[in-house]
């Protein structure tokens, strides 16, 4: 299993429970992937941690499941029944016997921007990936750490779990089949110059809003404008920020409409007075999500305008933002003022990785669910999708990955 996000975890837990040995490799120091960063799922508006917790619980007890974190796949070779996977283990400077007591972080003098919260707050160089981390183990950011000359953590750790001399290691692992579930990355909105992405502090992405709204996030669940840490009186959701765009992501990301509707629902809870507006081309709330769309539309009073904003301008004095969009009913260009703009950044397939030949990708950068006999892909690596299909895609890939074992009489 390459990737410990929701589709990878699902494939792993389902295959392990069906009686197959699974080894999961995750590039980051903790499992959970992108969903661990989400505040709530649509359409139930429930926390992703509930689903993650039960998966972790099932995996924690399953002797057929093993995993490596901070493990990046750099090459995959071979074929069904005899794959060789080359893995680069990045040093975390904390050994597996860490108990998660947190002494290292208490004494650590160095800080780093918290990538989990998109840099909106800071952690110590010795940090727990996040509150619900699995494994519940601290890691040390090699770039922020002051190194062996400081070593306060080494002295503070009662368990001798810290090794500041730890070096990268390369492992060669054998596998009968491989599932590629490397997931997605939020599209870099700094490339959307006309929206001021990455330039105007109060133009944020939907993922940043997720972290902000999360009770465990950088603002403890408060929605605050980055420029002055004030609750915004008006928020605009700008759809297709990068998606459905020949200059950026040519595909529709499939989830952003619902993400924005979900965000409108929870923002309405904590900012009951705020003006909410959404600018879109099509509201793609397929299937039962239509119910959710109707519920949010009626329950939040969000103003829905069909039209893709062409420009966002900042008033440097106030940090407020002028959203320029055409009112298609009369052809007039509206200039609307908002205190916060949330860009519905699209889903880009995770960056090119040596483990996968470039030829395996389609023109959008996604990979086919069946790459070769024994080599499968799942989740957002294959196409943009929300959590429910990612779960199903994980289960489907798990089945394909165990079929060859079934044919050899496994389990009988």
């Amino acid at each position: 299993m390459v990737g410990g996000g929701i589709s990878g975890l699902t494939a792993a837990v389902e295959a392990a429970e069906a009686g197959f040995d699974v080894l999961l490799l995750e590039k980051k120091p903790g499992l959970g992937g992108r969903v661990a960063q989400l505040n709530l799922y649509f359409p139930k508006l429930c926390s992703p941690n509930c689903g993650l917790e039960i998966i972790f619980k099932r995996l924690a007890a399953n002797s057929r499941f093993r995993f490596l974190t901070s493990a990046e796949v750099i090459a995959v070779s071979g074929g069904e029944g005899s794959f060789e996977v080359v893995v680069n283990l990045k040093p975390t400077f904390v050994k597996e016997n860490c108990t998660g007591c947190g002494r290292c972080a208490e004494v650590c003098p160095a800080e780093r921007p918290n990538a989990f919260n998109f840099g909106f707050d800071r952690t110590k160089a010795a940090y727990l990936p996040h509150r619900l981390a699995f494994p519940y183990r601290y890691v040390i950011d090699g770039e922020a750490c002051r190194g062996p000359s400081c070593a306060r953590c080494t002295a503070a750790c009662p368990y001798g779990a810290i090794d500041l001399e730890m070096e990268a290691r390369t492992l060669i692992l054998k596998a009968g089949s491989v599932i590629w579930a490397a997931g997605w990355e939020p599209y870099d909105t700094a490339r959307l110059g006309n929206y001021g992405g990455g330039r105007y502090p109060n133009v944020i992405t939907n993922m940043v809003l997720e972290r902000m709204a999360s009770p465990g996030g950088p603002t403890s669940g408060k929605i605050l404008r980055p420029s002055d840490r004030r609750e915004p009186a008006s928020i605009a959701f700008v759809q297709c920020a990068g998606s459905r765009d020949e200059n950026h992501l040519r595909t529709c990301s499939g989830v952003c409409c619902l993400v924005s509707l979900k965000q409108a629902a929870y923002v309405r809870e904590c900012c009951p007075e705020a003006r909410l507006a959404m600018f879109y081309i099509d509201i793609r709330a397929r299937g039962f999500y239509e119910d959710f769309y109707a519920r949010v539309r009626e329950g939040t009073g969000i103003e829905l305008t069909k039209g893709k904003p062409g420009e966002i301008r900042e008033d440097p004095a106030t940090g407020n933002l002028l959203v320029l969009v055409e009112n298609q009913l009369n052809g007039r260009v509206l200039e609307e003022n908002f205190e916060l703009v949330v860009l519905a950044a699209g889903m880009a397939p995770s960056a090119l990785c040596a483990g996968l030949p470039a030829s395996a990708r389609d023109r959008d950068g996604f990979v086919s669910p069946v790459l070769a006999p024994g080599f499968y892909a799942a989740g957002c690596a294959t196409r943009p999708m929300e959590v429910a299909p990612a779960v199903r895609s994980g289960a489907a890939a798990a089945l394909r990955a165990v079929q060859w074992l079934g044919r050899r009489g496994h389990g009988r």
Partner: protein
Amino acid sequence: MAAKIGVYLCSGCGIGEVLDPAGLLQVAEDDRRVALVRESDFFCGQDAGLIQGDVTDRVVDAVVLAACSPRFYVKVFDYGPGLPVVRVNLREQVAWCHESGSEDTQMLAEDALRMALARAGGSAVPEPFRLENPSRAILVVGGGLAGLTAALEAARAAYRVILVERENSLGGWLRNVYRCAPLRPPYAESAENPFHLLSREVESHPGIVVYRGASIERTAGGPGQFDVTVRQGERLLKERVGSIIVATGAGAYDPAKLTRLKNLAYGTSPNIIVSSKFEELALRGGGRVARPSDGREVRRAAFIQCAGSRDPEHLPYCSAACCVETLKQAQYLLEPDPDCTVFIYYRDLRANGQYEHFYKKVQEEGAVFIQGEVVHVADRGGSLSVEADDLSLGCRSRVEGLDLVVLATGMIPDVAGGGPEQGALKLDYRQGPELPALKYGFPDSHFICFPYETRRTGIYAAGSVREPMDLVTTLEDAAGAALKAIQCVEMTARGQAVHPRALDVSYPEFNMSRCTQCKRCTEECPFGAINEDAGSNPLPQITRCRRCGTCLGACPERIVSFKDYSVALISSMIKAIEVPDGDEEKLRVLVFACENDAYPALDLAGAAGLKYNAWVRIIPLRCLGSLNPVWIADAMSRGIDGVLLMGCRQGEDYQCHFINGSELARTRIMNVSETLDRMGLEAGRIKMVEVEIIDYTKIPAILDGFADELAALGPNPLKGF
């Protein structure tokens, strides 16, 4: 029952700095079942061997480990199926969230240890429930795209498959389809209909038995031993299977009901047709579409989306596939003849994901997309017209001289009322013959996290029977369902529970001699696992059981017990709590926490260093549905001042892994308030809250708030009796 409990007291991770080990040692020594006590600050690391050694040497037959939360180091402290391990959560729920060196904190830790000892002493070792000759075969009901795919994928993993299709030929919906919407990346080109290939492969696969023109007469038993009676014409066949995939698909929304949509004028002209009819015309004409009234080739056509879908009067949901299906159908006209004129009326063009390429392609082929609401369709002497409030023009617009108008009708699940597949399984279950449904008749499941789990164990729904979906999604969905079905037969064969208590080998046993035939267990089981005999006695079907314990909570006679989870066991834990006299002004609050959400939330509160009162005594429950009201009476009569139930969210967007546990608990405590009244106690001593994991920041407010409410009520008057 354990007679030689080993107690292992960990002082690591700050526990030793908060608690006095002497007090804990004393508690252990006071219990005559304790054979040995060991202390360390690193049982999870260098001293892990100590416990293993005691177990191997058979010095102990149960382990009580007072250390971190049971959510951690599960495999490290696993000594095999024969040895119960009870964890005392001193780290997250004592040391990290209570005052160091305080008397109250110490009392909390000691009570927690006493409760664990009671639990360890009262637990027996569960023996897995193994069927004698479990079936590993998989039944697939429905031979459409989802069914064929599921059957083939399961057979490719070398599982025997029995496929039952009601029609005389396989293919389902696809049989009447000319071409398919794109099936492969990058999803820009329509695809050949795969059903010929698929059905041929299924029919020729040695591992698949196909019954065509067949239906199911009866499904009895449970996972590993479903006994299915299949009727094929006059023949009745018996099959035993291990699990079932329901892939009965969806049907088109009843066109007759469309006549109520006056603006679409359906039924007033032979040339106003539904999308399935259009597909049929294309198939019959080998791609050429002749109009029904006079057989003339169609040169000008309009497609109208959402005919019935996204309409509160008809289908409130979106049918998910129609936009892309219409794109494909427009191609039937445009590809052979680019001079054809095609209009597509839509509200939102839902070509999600990579289907965007397909949308663009059909645009380039010349289809004219008109966003807006259709207000009027009419046929004047064979020439049709459509009028719409046109959003892109900003005014009303009209198209005339059309040969054909195609209405994109939505889909309805075939297990839902009205569909021809009604009664697809005919389950011999006390709770009814079919899968309990969500809104709109689609089978109930937690459709985000655990989409395949229906409320009938071992029966998995796949394809558009579960929710409206397109073909690509269906292919993946069917493969996933096949894995779940395989998993179910394997776990059942091992005597293990399936999701969510996967690997659990305990199961409920019924002491029938005391049963009063009240039927609560048979009615309340969320998974229909308990049948009834003619005398209304419960007949538990263990392989259908998910081990949530709802039956245990439902039974007023306390006759349902698991080896390691029972009414008596939890009662003994409650009795292990030391309740100070009323004049000490030390409240005691018993918390029943759902182990899936509330318990981890309590852990997280500790990990975040949030502080709350040390009067709470926490007992995790498998599910609040397993809460037996007798425990509340026990707690009250012990002099405990209040009982707090922490469960998950109820209602339409429920989160319970067992469907309705917290809802059942609420009903039960409402009934308990009467009993409280009789005991002369205030109803406010029992409270229920909904807690998600992420609500951990609210834990102190919840617990301290309840303690304040109890303080206002004064001490439980039953203290000391």
